């Protein structure tokens, strides 16, 4: 039976507003509400559908602490059977580079046939952890996939990009990141959510040398941008308002 790992991450709910620490060097995210990264929901649903179709062993994998285990519980509720929490022994700040090295260490031991991940995590829109893992493991990979079919030893995917798409056949083992449109995630009912709370979670501890990769960038500053919008309401008489707007647009853009 094919073995599928799904990478999941907890991210702050978009409606919440992260703060900036007093020294201006770090983002304060402790008090925010966390949700499963929306792109990871597509990856989970894709895995569950493959299981329904062909049978598969599904494991959700998340790197981090308590919040990461919340992501695993959300994955359980959506139909994933097993969960592995990947922990780094040192509590250093990690970029996508460091996260990928740690996750790859765990996934190498788990040896899945297929890894599914989101196209990007909407906290920092890093858009790299999954592809990096594939390269570390020597897996074939394709990003932003909106159609997926699994055969015996290969995978056919449709990969979208600006102005077109390509159809690729990837030999297994492979990694795919999911784009919106690949499926419609089914949201869990209460009993599944409650059951997910009691499910055991396995842990994988990353060895210290692997996890202690330093950050390759420094934060110079963090700011909250506030684009100055004029918020000028034009005449609500249709003819007058649109004439006014057309004049403004012509002056500002179309000259």
């Amino acid at each position: 039976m094919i073995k599928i790992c799904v990478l999941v991450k907890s991210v702050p709910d978009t409606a919440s507003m992260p703060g900036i620490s007093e020294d201006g060097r770090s983002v304060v995210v402790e008090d925010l509400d966390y949700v499963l990264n929306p792109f990871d929901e597509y990856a989970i649903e894709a895995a569950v559908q493959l299981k329904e179709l062909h049978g598969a062993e599904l494991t959700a994998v998340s790197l981090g602490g308590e919040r990461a285990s919340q992501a695993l519980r959300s994955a359980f509720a959506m139909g994933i059977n097993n969960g592995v929490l990947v922990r780094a022994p040192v509590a250093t700040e990690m970029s996508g580079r460091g996260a990928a090295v740690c996750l790859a260490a765990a996934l190498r031991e788990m040896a899945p046939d297929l890894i599914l991940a989101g196209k990007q995590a909407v906290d920092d829109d890093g858009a790299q952890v999954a592809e990096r893992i594939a390269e570390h493991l020597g897996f074939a990979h394709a990003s932003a996939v909106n159609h997926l079919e699994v055969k015996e030893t290969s995978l056919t995917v449709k990969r979208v990009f600006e102005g077109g798409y390509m159809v690729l056949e990837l030999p297994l083992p492979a990694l795919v990141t999911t784009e919106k449109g690949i499926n419609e995630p089914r949201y869990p009912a209460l009993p599944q959510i409650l059951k997910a709370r009691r499910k055991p979670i396995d842990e994988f501890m990353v060895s210290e040398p692997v996890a202690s990769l330093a950050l390759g960038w420094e934060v110079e500053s963090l700011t909250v941008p506030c684009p100055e919008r004029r918020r000028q309401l034009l005449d609500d008489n249709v003819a007058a308002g649109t004439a006014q707007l057309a004049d403004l647009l012509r002056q500002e853009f179309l000259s």
Partner: protein
Amino acid sequence: MTVLVLLEPRCKLTDSNLTTVSAAARLARRLGVELHAVWPGKKVEDQLALLAGLGIRCLHSVEDGVLPQFSHEAWVPFLADLARFLETRLIVAPSSALGKAWCAALAARLGAELVQDCTALEAAGDGTPLVEKPLYAGKIVAALRLVDSPALVTLRPNTVPLERTGEETPDIQFHSIPASNGLCIIQDVVWFAAGTVELAEARVVVAGGRGLGGPENWPLLRDLCDVLGAALGASRAVVDAGWIDQAHQVGQTGKTVSPDLYIACGISGTIQHLAGMRRAGKVVAINKDPAAEIFRHCDYGIVGDLHEVVPALTRELKARRQPVA
């Protein structure tokens, strides 16, 4: 030491490729190093006119081109070898789907940091590359100094200016890529009809939301797009309702756009939608509800029924068109 730009041409060299070159050229000048670029397509000679005066010293081309028959397994190791050979300090690419995927794989091979989707690239006082990176759907902007070498950066379209000085064209150097071990097989590459304006790169975007009333009303917005040379955007609500393809969605789980002008028609202005268009130059909102959130995030607003306002605006704009000489 060098700065290296990855061109990502699709059907042709887009403006986002050229502005990426410009941003990289400014940085290379500051560092006092050569700017090199890699062209993955066929017929490199045909690109020289477009690339003239942008500051590229040497253009690396793969003999038969890797696009459109692009193979990751052959291309990424080639780029990694080239970057090592050129002792590259910084690799820069447009933040398109392919540009981002190449850079993620390349960064892993080089053990380097990568910052995707940046909105500015400069040199800090001491010459260290400094990027501006939006976080949390653009609610926070970080300025990051890329102290490790090499580092990789992708740049969002329409965020950096194009600078051309003189006519100098780059030298061309041809390479051949050893046959790949063939992990993936490309079965098909499909390009959508040329001539449509690509949403992520458009200078003007007209977007429709649930206020449109139904898919039969898109022609109202398409006519406005035509007079403005705009691309058509949409809210998630109408994508989910099946009124239009997902490729048009603007927002957190859709595309991020930074046009000079964004016209939101019948869109309420939720935070997830704002995430995709916050950086537009000017925002115009047309909505029948004066209390709609979008009016708090626009430069000009018209309170009214879009079914009347949009066609009237199209007519007014047509009437103001400069007569063709």
